């Protein structure tokens, strides 16, 4: 059933499918100067892409269509979450592939290069997963409760602005005099303590994702269409 839901959601967002091809370009345009930023940017962009089924549901009354089918409301929620997790994996893979490209661009244009190594990359992936689950917790339950039209301000725009600001603040902090090595130190620490840092981040992420899922399930089961 989950596959059917994902396939139908995918077909419903026919007009938005092309955006998927634009995600790598967008990621490079935003984070070309910092190879390590590729994964979180790609994960963030992919998560945003997974919100498209919500964007089309109001216009084409997708929820109403689903509720005429012999399926449970839970199937609809499951489909959206699994699609979002697939997009998370796509984002991670895309980020890992784009890292060397960003590194090369950074080398040419900024005369600086940086490579995280295997352990460092795992730490970045774990941190990106945490960012994904926090963003997911902000967006999915609200969109399941109110739909895209009513929920987009609280469920998409505000979290996006918040994370954008967070991103900007982080870059400002690591760019301040004296903090040049901060990022490297963080990655080195995470690399050396891979189980504690990456494992801990992953565990927190799983808990947050579970909370988000259960909340969405509860809110969607009570929603009137």
């Amino acid at each position: 059933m989950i596959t059917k839901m994902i396939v139908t959601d995918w077909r419903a967002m026919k007009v938005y499918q092309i955006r998927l091809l634009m995600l790598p370009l967008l990621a490079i345009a935003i984070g070309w100067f910092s190879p390590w930023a590729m994964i979180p940017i790609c994960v963030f962009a992919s998560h945003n892409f997974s919100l498209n089924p919500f964007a089309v549901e109001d216009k084409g009354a997708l929820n109403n269509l689903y509720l005429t089918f012999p399926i449970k409301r839970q199937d609809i929620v499951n489909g959206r979450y699994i699609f979002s997790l697939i997009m998370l994996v796509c984002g991670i893979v895309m980020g890992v592939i784009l890292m060397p490209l960003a590194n090369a661009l950074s080398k040419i244009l900024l005369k600086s290069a940086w490579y995280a190594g295997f352990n460092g990359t795992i730490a970045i992936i774990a941190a990106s997963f945490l960012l994904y689950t926090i963003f997911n917790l902000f967006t999915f339950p609200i969109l399941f409760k109110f739909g895209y039209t009513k929920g987009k301000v609280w469920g998409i725009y505000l979290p996006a602005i918040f994370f954008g600001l967070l991103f900007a603040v982080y870059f400002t902090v690591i760019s301040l005099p004296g903090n040049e090595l901060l990022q490297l130190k963080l990655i080195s620490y995470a690399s050396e303590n891979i189980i504690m840092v990456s494992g801990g981040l992953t565990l927190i992420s799983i808990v947050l994702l579970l909370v988000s899922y259960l909340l969405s399930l509860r809110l969607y089961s009570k929603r009137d269409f």
Partner: protein
Amino acid sequence: MNNAIKISNLKKEYKNFLLDSISFSVPSGYVCGFIGENGAGKTTTLKLMLNMVIKDGGDVEILGRSHNDISIKEDLGVLFDQPYFQEDWTALDVEKTMGLFYKKWNSKVYHMHLEKFDLNPKQKFKTLSQGMKMKLGLAVTLSHDAKLLLLDEPTSGLDPVMRDEMLDILRDYMIEENRSVFFSTHITSDLEKIADYIIYIHKGKIVYSGLKDELTEKYCLIRGGNGDIPQIKRKQILGLREHLGGFEGMIDVSDVGGFPSSVILETASLDDIMVHMNKKGLEI
């Protein structure tokens, strides 16, 4: 007699509307018209039946099973006044989706209907006229061997020719045994042609549930000149309207005695019954 639909004490409360513990049943094999003015609760009832809206109380049984049993939707053909298809979908896209969810989806029947309704399988939904959109919706509802069609205002927004065509399609559908249609509308002239059974809802309450003929035979229109209404009869006339030339209204046929022979009695249509009941606000 088996019931296609059995609703008991169904309740839903909104800020400005109450569906007030309604109960009715629709026997299998009937075309049932669900009538009532705009805002009476027709769509809410249909959505409650489909679990699109969560009930505050009561029970719904469809084809002998609780509406919470999702498998009943295999046997339902659902069509609202605007089919729920994505604007960029073509009839072929619609088929791909429906085929995923209905075990009894019949592609041959679907394409036969597309041809019969003159629908281009590659034309996008958003470019279809309202009538064509409804036909596409009907093609879907008729292509998975549904035992019960739940239609919400399917003829609203259609011209008379298209409406007549739609009714023909429903007549064809009813040829097979054990099929039922539950048809909400405020265009009661459509029901005069096709319905056997009527559920009448008014301000969230069921005011009539039974055979159409029993309802239309129960009332007649009455017209007369000034002074033709005996004082004692005045209260029996529903929706009484008096004017310079005389009066008009509707009356229960069992109450027609006692009027002077000059009054004119005429058969009441469903439209007349709805209009006069609304004016009077009484239960039938």
